[in-house]
């Protein structure tokens, strides 16, 4: 069956859908790495916010404000063009050349410079938002908990690690899931610096086939699947993490 004129008289051939599936896989992989790094860094930043030293608090506040109140797109370009300009030429040549390590039959390839820049920029940006959510969670833990743990002879670090953080994380699950879904959507911006993720591949397919509607429909569907899938997985993970209250 030939589609009507506004659909461009054609369907996408399977190998074009293959391109977009590869793009979707890269989107998922990048999002997964970013979520991990952003959570780790977010916890550290939130802990820094609760420190006694004013200089640490000021540094954290500055970091949060700079990363939350500037566009992710500008941060990506800053890392991609700006840092590339700072590094010595030899380092850039090494980063841009392919590198592979073979370990017990598994080949690990050093990712492209685009991917590394995207990973750093996205992780720092998302960490600022994760930190803010965790901080709100920490604030929601009753002050008596903190006092009780100190009275039992725990050090401030032990109090944070064993008493405050576990309770804060429980409160913070839901908003954190929202941030993670945001990370999946935000990976689409990395196409601007040439990361071949889902949006990038949909543009590639579109310009190759001129089947605009089909290319964007497939990409949109894949995004919906990724986001709804993550939502479902997150909803299922919650009861195990949030038990006991």
């Amino acid at each position, binding site marked *: 069956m030939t589609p009507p004129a506004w659909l461009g008289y054609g369907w996408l051939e399977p190998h074009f859908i293959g391109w977009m599936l590869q793009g979707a896989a890269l989107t998922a992989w990048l999002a997964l790495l970013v979520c991990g790094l952003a959570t780790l860094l977010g916890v550290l930043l939130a802990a820094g916010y609760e420190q006694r030293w004013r200089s640490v608090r000021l540094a954290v506040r500055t970091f949060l404000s700079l990363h939350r109140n500037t566009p992710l797109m*500008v941060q990506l370009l800053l890392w991609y063009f700006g840092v590339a300009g700072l590094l010595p030429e030899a380092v850039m040549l090494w980063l841009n050349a392919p590198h592979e390590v073979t370990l017990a039959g598994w080949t690990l390839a050093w990712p492209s410079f685009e991917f590394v820049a995207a990973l750093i920029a996205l992780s720092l940006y998302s960490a600022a938002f994760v930190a803010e959510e965790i901080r709100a969670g920490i604030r929601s833990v009753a002050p008596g908990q903190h006092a009780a743990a100190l009275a039992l002879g725990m050090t401030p670090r032990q109090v944070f690690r064993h008493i405050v953080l576990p309770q804060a994380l429980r409160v913070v699950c839901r908003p954190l899931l929202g941030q993670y879904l945001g990370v999946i959507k935000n990976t*689409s911006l990395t196409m601007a610096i040439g990361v071949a993720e889902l949006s990038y591949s*949909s543009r590639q397919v579109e310009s190759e086939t001129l089947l605009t509607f089909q290319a964007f429909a497939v990409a949109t569907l894949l995004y919906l699947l990724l986001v709804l899938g993550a939502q479902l997985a997150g909803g299922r993970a919650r009861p195990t993490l949030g038990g006991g209250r």
Partner: protein
Amino acid sequence: MTAVEVISANLDYLLLGSWPAGPLGGMALSVVIGLTAALLASLLGLAGGIVLTLGSPLLRRLVAISAALLRAIPVVMLIFWCYFLLPVLFAVDVPGTLTVIAALALIGGAFLTQAVYAGIAAIAAGQWQAGLSLGFSHWQTLRLIVLPQALRIMVPSFVNQWITLVKDTSLAYIVGVAELTFVASQVNNREQVYPLPVFATVALLYWLWCSGLVWLGARWETRYAGVGRK
């Protein structure tokens, strides 16, 4: 040339684009896109939230599903849809700036629909009952009694969404609209020497803009703190 000289030589271009000799661009165009999209998104969100509260079941479901879909896809995808398909569907040349405004307004409206609906739901049921028992219709109760209180609760959501919108105007870069980020990359390509200072200057401009909104939001919030809460 030093970095400062490069920035100051290009500052006019970063702020205004090729205006007045050519079309408006740079930060001025970002502001136009941001303000228009924020206004449209706020109106859409208000309308959506009201429909979710008072609409017929079918209409409610329709609005809820389309808002959920819009919230689940990246802004970049919606910009593609608007940029590449609006011209095909309407067989006219739609300027890139308009398609970006449309995409940003739709996504912002979808998020604000949720916020407005939640804000209305947060008003105590007694307010509705009091309005209805005084002989007001549902629409009158909403407009005269519930909404004025709910809007105060919604102030933070609206300000946050506006900040997100401001940052998302930079996505127009992807379809080549000559707003601040695109113009900055042009300057960077032309000068080649100081990528970090160029993009840092642009980041600072956005930061000032967003921080201004944060400050305004905090002021409103303290003014209306606690008013109309359950």
